[in-house]
């Protein structure tokens, strides 16, 4: 599959406007959706959110992710959300698709009668800007795999007993997974206070930065409220990109790459060098973002 020719000068790519006007036909979209659902679940039957499926569909129709990383740009999605939702309704049950995350706040350890659950230390914890992404990471077993509890923004502040477990650990870290958007960057800045992270616990943003989204050529949203002021660590490209009201959701990252990357970042796992070429390396998640 040949990647469309990017237009990196303005940080966008393709003929998204034309794509939105014309859009794929219903039959094409239905086939593409089924293929996207299969890809999103690979490998091993990953469970994914509706937004992740949407972006997987976009990736299938406009494979910008195959473009060279040295070119920094994001792209408009080739499918309108309304068209995706219509296709999703036509598709019926989609294997692997998670139901919407419940908004209810649930007490940690609510089914654990043993008295000692909160007596131990937690070396790490992950806060997600998106409750849907938090639920997806939990549904795929990341908390046990990475020994890292995962909470969404709606579950903040943290239960005092969980915060106490962080305080009970030496060198505990709280990681913050956020979108590459003004709102996401603002969440990263305020998450520690909002969560009630105990003093002395390091807070490490691991979410997308605009430059990372640009290197991965992820689909962007428009109409974001520009950050004021933009983060001090932003470079000129990021300043311009944010000023245009753009944002990229964490959901735009392939589900497998997201799970691998979060695991790698919260566990401090070193990446092995790719063995057999770029395509295989992409499949294994090596082209994911570095620690912010």
């Amino acid at each position, binding site marked *: 599959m040949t990647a469309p020719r990017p237009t990196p000068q303005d940080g966008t790519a393709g003929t998204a406007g034309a794509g939105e006007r014309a859009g794929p036909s219903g039959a094409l979209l239905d086939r593409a959706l089924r293929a996207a659902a299969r890809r999103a679940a690979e490998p*091993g039957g990953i469970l994914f959110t509706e937004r992740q499926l949407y972006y997987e569909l976009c990736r299938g129709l406009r494979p910008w992710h195959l473009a060279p990383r040295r070119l920094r740009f994001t792209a408009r999605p080739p499918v309108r959300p309304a068209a995706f939702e219509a296709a999703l309704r036509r598709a019926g049950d989609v294997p692997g698709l998670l139901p919407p995350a419940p908004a209810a706040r*649930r007490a940690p350890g*609510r089914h654990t009668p*043993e008295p*000692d659950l909160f007596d*131990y*230390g937690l070396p790490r914890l992950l806060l997600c800007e998106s409750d849907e992404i938090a639920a997806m990471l939990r549904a795929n077993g990341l*908390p046990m795999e990475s020994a890292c509890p995962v909470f969404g923004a709606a579950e903040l502040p943290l239960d005092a007993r969980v915060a106490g477990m962080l305080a009970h*650990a*030496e060198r505990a870290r709280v990681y913050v997974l956020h979108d590459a958007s003004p709102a996401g960057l603002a969440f990263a800045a305020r998450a520690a206070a909002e969560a009630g992270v105990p003093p002395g616990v390091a807070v490490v943003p691991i979410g997308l930065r605009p430059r990372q989204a640009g290197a991965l050529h992820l689909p962007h949203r428009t109409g974001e409220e520009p950050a004021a002021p933009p983060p001090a660590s932003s470079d000129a490209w990021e300043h311009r990109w944010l000023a245009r009201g753009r944002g990229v959701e964490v959901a735009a990252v392939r589900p497998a790459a997201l799970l691998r990357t979060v695991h790698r970042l919260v566990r401090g796992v070193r990446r092995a060098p790719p063995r057999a070429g770029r395509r295989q390396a992409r499949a294994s998640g090596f082209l994911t973002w570095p620690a912010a």
Partner: protein
Amino acid sequence: MARWGACLAARDPAGPLGAAGAGSVRAVGRQAFGLFDGPGPASGPFEAAGLTAVGEVTLFNADRLRALLGQGAVPQDRTDGELLLHAYAKLGTAGLAAAEGMFALAVADGDELVLIRDHVGARTLFWARAGDAFAASTSLRALRRWPGVDAGLHLPAVRSFLTFAYLPGRETLLRGVREALPGRCLRLRADGSTAEETFWEPAEDVADLPPSEHAAALRALLEDATARRLPAAGPAAVLLSGGVDSSLVTALAARLHDAPVHTYSIAFGPDTQDELGYSGLVAAHCRTGHRVLTVPGSAVAARLPETVALLDSPVGDPLTVPNLLLAEAVAADGMRVVLNGEGGDPVFGGPKNLPMLIHELHRDDPSPGARARAYIDSYRKCHGDLPVLLTPDTLAALDGAPPPADAVAPYLRPGRMTGLLNQLLHANLRTKGAHHILTKVERITAATGLEGRAPLFDRAVVDHAFRVPPGQKLAGTAEKWILKEAVRDLLPATVVDRPKSGMRVPVQQWLNGPLRDLGHDLLLSRAARARGLFRPDTVRTWLRGRGTLLPRQGGKLWLVLTLELWLRSFDIEP
């Protein structure tokens, strides 16, 4: 070198033993005993206090047991087996509980055949119904040959093995054969009935004492446990990985033994990460004679089939061949006993507990089985892959069979242990401790004429572990904290306070290199396909390094490879 067999039958109990290949067969009423050739310390039949028995018995508290039975009641020249039989004859299961050691014993007691396995499971024994008789042996291979025993493949055990990398309870891979559980006394009766008595089970008895008092008490118990496992004379050997557990055993042995102590470590070559820096530091600190054995992948490939064949039940642990080579090196130095640091993790709270605590924070499913299912997920073996690894026919045949989680569920609910951490430790001790760690050590060392001894599995040490408040075992995020405090003065701080890393075994390198041909030949062979257990497409995907979210294909293939080798070795048919 021998292993024992026993039979209970209304008529001619000696006949099946002889047919299975036993020698030295002796019938005593409805029971008969005999010995099979094979790597093990079996002796007998012997008699004491009017009872007849056969056994593999090593006692570490023979002096205390003699004193308990009364001065002069058991002459000094009696073997450990005879002494244990005396204890059973005089005190019943209380006599067994008072013993400390490694034992698997069969006793003719009236009309019953009584099977006894030590407290923690350092030695193993199996039994089966054979027609209208009972058969028992420390050798599964002997029961495989036994007339009337159903030795077909037990499919639920295949699933358990792929889930745990060992078999965690009574089941074996032979349909009609069961493993006796540790700390139990199993009575087999001529009418076909059975009764099981527990003579020891860890009990939560938390003493709310300051850490210093618990550490001091633990130190005394560790010294006693180590001293009792040292050889009576001559040099002592310790397997030293460089982790805190084997390091503390080394330090205690060096302090308590009045002859030289030799330590043995392992490495996998220049391209792999090892812990030789730590083990070398401990060896220098404790002034041991230190030897490092480098095990190349080619040696693993060459020795893997015979190593798997040594195991009564397979263990999907890539360290089995290195363990065997290390044992051979120790034996070649003239040693007959080798100490190890096994037991620290399951008894005092190693690194596998945090994921389960986190699971409890998030648990949505209130059913008691949810914790057990999460526990088996935490093994990270092939349980989640079973729908794509096993063939549709195998999956259909397993439909309705008890799930693997049933093996751990009884330990993982409030009951004997009220604390969550203690439940996890109890489960670990009774499953992985007894059915993986200890049985592997025993089989591998016995194959070289050695006896592997584990002071951290000492019964008094284990009892003490459940008296220590859980927060002193997992203190904050510090694992095995009280154990480290108990020996802090014996070791360099860099060893005591180092994070747990475990032995990094280059499984994937081996499978891509020296084991590549063997792996492909075995797993994709006509014989493997004919057995019909595994889907070749999934095996091929894993062999190409694909199909899993995280790079665990090597570990998964290792399980499948081990199982295939074991099934071939035992010539098991569906």
